Every structure is written in C-alpha cells, then in structure tokens.
C-alpha cells in the first residue's frame, strides 16, 4: 500500500500552519520582544534592544513582580493539593456504589463547566461582608465569630481563592479518579482480602498503584492550569488587596494595559520557560511509558 498516497501530508500541514501561526510563533516572538523596549510609544521612538533590562527590572524593581512569580507557584501547588486529596477520598467513597451516584456525579461536575468570570462574580456576592451568603450562613448556624472580609483581608484572601477554585474543580478531578477506580478489577481486592488486608492496606497496595494513570492526568491538567491561572484571580481580587494576590498572568495583563509591552512579554517568557521545563519533563515521562 502506498502510504504517501492514502495518508497525504497536507492533512497535517494545514492545521500545523494555523497552530504555528497563532500559538507557537507568538510565544517565540514574545521571547524576542522581551529583550526590547517595546511599548505603546514605540511607534514614535522606534524599537531598541535593551538586553536583559526587562528581566533585571522584574527581579529587582520595587514593584514586586517576583512575588507574582512566587504566587504562581504557590497557587499551583496548594490549589492542587486541596483539590486532589479530598477528590480522591470522595471518589473512593462513591466507588462502592450508592443510590443516586450518577446524580451526585452530575451535580459535583457541574461547576467545572461554568465560565470563570461567572463563578468569580457569583462568589464576589457570596463573599460580601454584610449581605453575602457565606457570612449570613455562618451567623445562622452560630458561627458568627468566623465572619471574615473574605476578599479584602490579607490573612484570608488566599483561602477564599483556593476555596472557590476547589468548589469549581473538585468534581472534575473526582470524575477522573472515579474512572480510574472503576478500571481496577474487583478480583484484586478479593485477593487482598483473602490475604487479610484492611482498608488502608488495600488503598496503599492495590488502589494507589493502579491509579497511577489517573493521578498523572490530574496532575498534568492541574499543574498546567495552575501555572496559567488568570480569570479567577482577575475577577475575584484583580491581584488585590494591594498586590497580595498577583500572579504572573495578572501582572502581564496589567503591564500590557499600561502599554509596557516589552515587560509584559518578558513576564510571559518567564512563564513559557517554566511551563516548557515542566512540559519536557512530563512528555519525556509519557513517551517512556509508551515505549515500555
């Protein structure tokens, strides 16, 4: 069979052109521009190379871009921990079969399909100090002392963000875990029980090793989502109070709005390098698994 003829290369080339043009090329172009003074005034003053100035500015200026980078990592790690661990146990719990399991799954998955802007706006109202649902509910059940200024108090603002993120994401993570759990043959558990395994033994020696695939998928999606997070923070706090909840992407948008395009692309390029390192690591891992 003539492979050239029945699998024409132009099937690949057309999508490749669009993809390269609107996805990868802008990213690489961003690296180039990050070494220039590109700004809204470039049209008048011309474009100049400034070497590493943008990067030096990011790490040494008093504008705290460094904390934005730190916050990006913090969000990535904590948001995944608070979603993955509870979702795992909920999945284990739901797995055993329960009346109305399908309905619970439909409901718990529901938030993850909604636009982040919407979720942000809804929680802005829920977090309202005087009239919001959360504080009212706390008072109603006699926990009024827990009332907080959820989005403007430095001490709790991150908790609020992680809470909203978990509200949205747990169902999604759980669904993937459930599929992984359902693919484990029941005999494995029966065999373990004959050997006298208790709940924790079974979890440790049967469930966890068999769930590697779904844990991996959740981690890949979770980490890439966390590093690129923007919408939820932009709508909930817009980086505030002060600059306490800025992440790389919110700073990049701010700089873009101020016309400091060079600085904005420099921040974006830092994010690109971070995700590239993590990406290469993951792709290597996946391709090794395929050849095994």
């Amino acid at each position, binding site marked *: 069979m003539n*492979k050239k*003829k*029945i699998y*024409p290369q132009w*099937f*690949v080339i057309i*999508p*490749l052109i*669009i*993809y390269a*043009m*609107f*996805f*990868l*090329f*802008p*990213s690489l*172009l961003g690296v180039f*521009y990050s070494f220039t003074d590109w700004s809204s005034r470039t049209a008048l003053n011309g474009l100049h190379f400034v070497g590493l100035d943008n990067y030096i500015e990011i790490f040494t200026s008093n504008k705290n871009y460094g904390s934005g980078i730190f916050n990006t990592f913090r969000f990535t790690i904590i948001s995944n921990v608070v979603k993955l661990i509870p979702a795992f146990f909920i999945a284990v719990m739901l797995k*055993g079969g329960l*009346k109305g399991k399908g309905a*619970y*799954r439909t409901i718990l998955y*529901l938030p993850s*399909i*909604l*636009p*982040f*802007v*919407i979720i942000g*706006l*809804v*929680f802005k*109202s*829920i977090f*309202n100090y005087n*009239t919001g*649902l959360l504080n009212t509910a706390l008072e109603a059940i006699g926990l009024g002392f827990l009332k907080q200024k959820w989005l403007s108090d430095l001490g709790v603002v991150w908790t609020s963000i992680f809470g909203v993120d978990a*509200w949205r994401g747990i*169902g999604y993570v759980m*669904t*993937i875990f*459930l599929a*992984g759990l359902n*693919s484990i043959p029941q005999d494995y558990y029966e065999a373990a029980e004959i050997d006298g395994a208790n709940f924790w033994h079974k979890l440790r020696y049967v469930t966890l090793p068999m769930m*590697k*695939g779904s844990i991996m998928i*959740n981690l*890949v999606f979770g980490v*890439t989502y966390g590093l690129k997070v923007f919408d939820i923070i932009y*709508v909930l706090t817009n980086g505030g109070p002060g600059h306490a909840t800025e992440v790389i992407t919110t700073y*990049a*948008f701010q700089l*873009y709005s101020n016309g400091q*395009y060079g600085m904005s*692309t420099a921040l974006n390029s830092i994010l*690109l390098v971070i*995700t590239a390192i993590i*990406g290469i690591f*993951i792709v290597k891992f996946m391709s090794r698994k395929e050849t095994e």
Partner: protein
Amino acid sequence: MKKKRVANFVKTIVCLFMSLIVLAPFYMVVINSFKTKNEAARMSLGLPTEWMFNNYIEVIDKGNLVQGFFNSLCYAGISTVLGVVLCSMAAFVLSRKETKLNNFLYYFFLCGLFFPVNYVTLVRVFQWMNLTNTRLGIVLVFTSSMMPFCVFTIYSFVQSVPVQMDEAAVIDGAGPISLFFKVIMPLMKPTLVTCFILEFMGVWSDFLTPLYLSSKSKLFPMTMAVYQFFGKNKNYWNYIFADIVLTCIPVIIVYLLGQKYIIGGITSGAVKE
C-alpha cells in the same frame, strides 16, 4: 449487613451535603435574579416578594446580550468545528504514517498543552495580518489553542481503529479524501463528539482571549458582556444575576445533553494507563 447500611447512610449524608454546597450558589443566583434591586441587594435565599420577570427582558436589552450570544455562538461553533475537523485529519495522518518527522510533529503539537499563549505578541501578529478586531482572527486563535488537546485525544483513538479498514477502503477504490471523510471519520465519532463538546464549552467560557484581542464591544462574547455589564451596574445584583443565568444556560444545556461523552472523553486517558 448492618455495618454496610450505616456506611451507606453516612455516604448519602456526605454526598447530599456536598451537593448542597455546589447547588446553593446556583439557587441563590436564580432566586435573586427575580427580585427587585433593593431586595436582591440583600442576597437572601427567600422567595421574592414580587416576581420580577422583567429583569430578564431589561438585561437582554441593556447588557447587549443578543449580540453577545451570537458572538459566543460564532466563536465557539465555528472554531470548534474547524478545530475538530483539522485535528482529526492531522491526528489520522500522524498516527498512521509514523515517520520521524511526523513523530516530531506530534510532540510539537503536544507541547502546546503546557505553553501559555502570548496574547501581547498575538496582538502584533494580528496587526501584521490585518486581523485586528475581526471575528476571523479570534476564531483562528481559539482553533489553534484547542489543537494540542484535540490532536492528543484523537491520536490515541485513531490507534484503536484497525488499519485493515483503510486497506479495505483503498481496495474498494477510495481516495484519501473519501477514505478519511467517509470511512474513518464516522468511526471516530465518539471522540470527535467529546472533543467538540469539551472545546465548545471551553471557548464559551473563555475570557482571556477576547479580553486581549477585541477592543470593540461589538465583538464581545457573552462572558465579556457580563463582565462589562457588572462593571457598569455594580449595585444592580438582580440584573447581574439574570445576566449570569442567561450566560450559563447554553453551557448547561450542552453539558446535560453531552454528559455521557464528556465523562467518557476526559477519562479515556486515565483508564488506558
């Protein structure tokens, strides 16, 4: 037996409690969208004293929602159909013709799963190509940003379609185009539907792309229209909530109709191990 019943009872309580936490905000939004401005500002969970169905008519008019709806539909519909068809073509050939180059190209597509899109330079690219503030430009950006996920998902599905299918079709005299569109594509239907639904919902929810790439409110999708409306009417929670309900209804309908495919799709990778 008794122990099992107790366990089931506890499970049910936990599940009901979690469902309550998920559903409470939905209830609050819907119920308050029917209240008057002052009543909605209190955000209570009680029923409205007077049902203000007018809020919806008002917000459709003021919030530019008809325009927003058709923009969202245009972005999500066109970019997703285009993306899924192009990606299935690419994934088919990449998977069937495993040359060194194609293997490289597969990972080239895949790296987009991790990379962030650089919107600032994308604005520049738009200027060069005369795409600034055009629907075509925004559609192409959405199409390209869904490619990594779609190629990845469809590629692994193609591998499960037996090569004998291709051979049989070619012996029957099919050319590459009819082989692909008449034989292979129908076989890939489950994956294609999954990709379509997931990406459709993704584009519908997206906020960042239009935020950078459209400066004209004529081009705003529903998400942007809501956010703009919120900015202008911060105290009118009844309208904001009505706006939110209208923006969510389309995705919720797609979700409920396509649920089977969504769960199957996002989990296929996990189960395969």
